[in-house]
């Protein structure tokens, strides 16, 4: 399965370079591909316009979609393992709603147009810090809430995932309310900007955003993947994992920090993209089984493929306008998901 996904990745990425309001033929993309990756200008000056479309817009955009999709799906797989619940998704620890609020705050206060630093807008920083702050609050509150006697076998240390789930829901609701309040006081232009951002979009992709993503999301993904054996053991239950020699509280902290980093970065760079983190790992579990070594790897690859495809559709369906990519992921994936669930009766929620 990872081999299959790996093999279809290059054609999908290639498609991302070809498709758009200005169609570029595959042969032209192919002939320019080496220069695209290595230099800033084409060999043949006649091709300048298509080259710069690919170099400045489509290449960073496609790669960013690939990275964000992979990061979200992999984070989803990790959260489903950590919470031992196939319905968990990366937003469960409050990171998405926190990032959303952070983005709204920065749009309302700073305004949408100010490019602050390195070509990254204030919105990116607002979303990133909002996401991390929300996770920090959820984690602290969940750690300080007393554990119930029944789940508190490992009491005295650590954070109960059940508490995290509940606090996460509360913080998500709170951030959602604050977000609505901001939308209420915002003027029409700001309001539209906030709500578009909440639907996800990769139109802001550039080299700076891509580099930021590569330096945060990729290492986080690698660190999460390395915990695959401990995640398997954790599925048995926390005390079982402890007896197997897993440092459960360390594992929880590590996963939450890495998922928070990956998701906060994804949301900051590409807006709120639902569905990928929840459904991709769930689908792949039907195919490769629950063991995380394969599941995490395949989720990352499939998430990347799905988001690149969704983005290709988003910018070609109503061309020259663009659909929000979050709308496309949901419309693409939901029926497929329902179909698979119907075929694998009994493999979903037990």
């Amino acid at each position, binding site marked *: 399965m990872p081999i299959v996904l790996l093999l279809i990745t290059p054609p999908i990425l290639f498609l991302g370079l070809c498709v758009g309001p200005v169609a570029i033929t595959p042969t032209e993309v192919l002939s320019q591909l080496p220069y695209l990756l290595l230099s800033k200008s084409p060999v043949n000056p006649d091709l300048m316009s298509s080259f710069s479309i690919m170099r400045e817009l489509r290449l960073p955009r496609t790669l960013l979609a690939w990275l964000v999709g992979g990061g979200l799906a992999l984070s989803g797989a990790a959260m489903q393992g950590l919470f*031992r619940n*196939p319905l968990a998704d990366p937003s469960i620890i409050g990171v998405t709603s926190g990032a959303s609020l952070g983005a709204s705050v920065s749009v309302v206060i700073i305004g949408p147009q100010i490019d602050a630093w390195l070509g990254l807008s204030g919105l990116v920083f607002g979303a990133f810090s909002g996401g991390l702050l929300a996770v920090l609050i959820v984690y602290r509150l969940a750690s300080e809430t007393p554990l119930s*006697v029944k789940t508190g*076998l*490992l*009491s*005295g*240390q*650590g954070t109960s995932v059940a508490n995290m789930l509940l606090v996460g829901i509360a913080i998500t609701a709170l951030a959602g309310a604050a977000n609505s309040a901001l939308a209420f006081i915002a003027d029409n232009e700001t309001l539209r900007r906030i709500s578009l951002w909440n639907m996800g979009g990769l139109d802001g992709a550039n080299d700076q955003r891509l580099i930021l993503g590569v330096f945060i999301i990729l290492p986080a993904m690698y660190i999460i993947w390395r915990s695959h*054996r*401990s995640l*398997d*053991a954790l*599925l*048995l*239950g926390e*005390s*079982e994992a*402890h*007896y*197997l*020699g*897993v*440092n459960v509280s360390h594992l929880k902290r590590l996963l939450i920090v890495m998922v928070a980093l990956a998701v906060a970065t994804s949301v900051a760079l590409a807006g709120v993209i639902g569905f990928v983190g929840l459904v991709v790992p769930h689908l792949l*579990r039907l195919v490769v*089984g*629950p*063991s995380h070594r394969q599941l995490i790897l395949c989720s990352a690859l499939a998430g990347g493929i799905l988001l690149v495809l969704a983005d290709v559709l988003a910018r070609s369906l109503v061309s020259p306008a663009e659909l929000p990519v979050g709308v496309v992921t949901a419309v693409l994936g939901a029926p497929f998901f329902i179909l698979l669930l119907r075929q694998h009766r*009994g*493999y979903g929620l*037990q």
Partner: protein
Amino acid sequence: MDCSKYMMSDNVLRFESVSLHRDGQALVNNIDLNVSAGKMLAVLGPNGAGKTSLLNCVNNVCDFSGTILLQDRSVADFSAQHRAKILAMLPQQSALNFPFSVKEVIMLGRYPHNTGSKVDVAITDELLAMMQLTALANRCYTSLSGGEQQRTQIARVLSQLILDADMSIRSGSVLLLDEPVSSLDLSHQSSLMVLLKEFCGAGLAIAVVLHDLNLAAAHADKCALLKGGQLLVAGTPEQVITAESIRQAYGIEVEIIAHPKTAKPLVIREF
């Protein structure tokens, strides 16, 4: 490897004045108890007597008072990996609701070992046969019956203590089993106890929570009877399973006769 450092009958797990309080209530009250290498200790007592709580104290993050020594060292002094190779525990209930196959669940027990997948597969195959699960090896765990799930989990905790493909274990290893026969039929109950005795023969120390006094009398080397968090009596099955101690612990009248074949105590209930 520090093999066979522990001789048969050495106390490899020792509870010394162990107490566990929660919400002002004593779940375990000042218990002294030893589990010896190569022996099986049956932990008996009515519901809420503190049997599970006592075993949970061995888990080193439980905030009990007193001392628990595993191979003469405090459990907290072991590295997680080293501890996991010599101490395994089967909890009463399993929380596993992900669709692993039976084989994969048993393989999870190999977590602390770095023996390579070839050895792990050999050990898993052997355990599948021992627990009569070979026919179910590729079945989805969540689709199994309660008893089949229980046998799978027992195979998993056994695989955690096995060192190599020869199925050897480190002498002085400790296995804690919390009601391992609660879902098993009569035939699997006895075959499990016989299998556990074989592992005892290799130097494994077992503490097993049981409700079936006759099963305990027939197979355990030693029994401990708990009530209200306190140890009522510990000793050989003959010393522990008496009409008097059962009246004290459970508040019921029973008659004890000698088993016609083994001469072990046999509890007859007066209905």
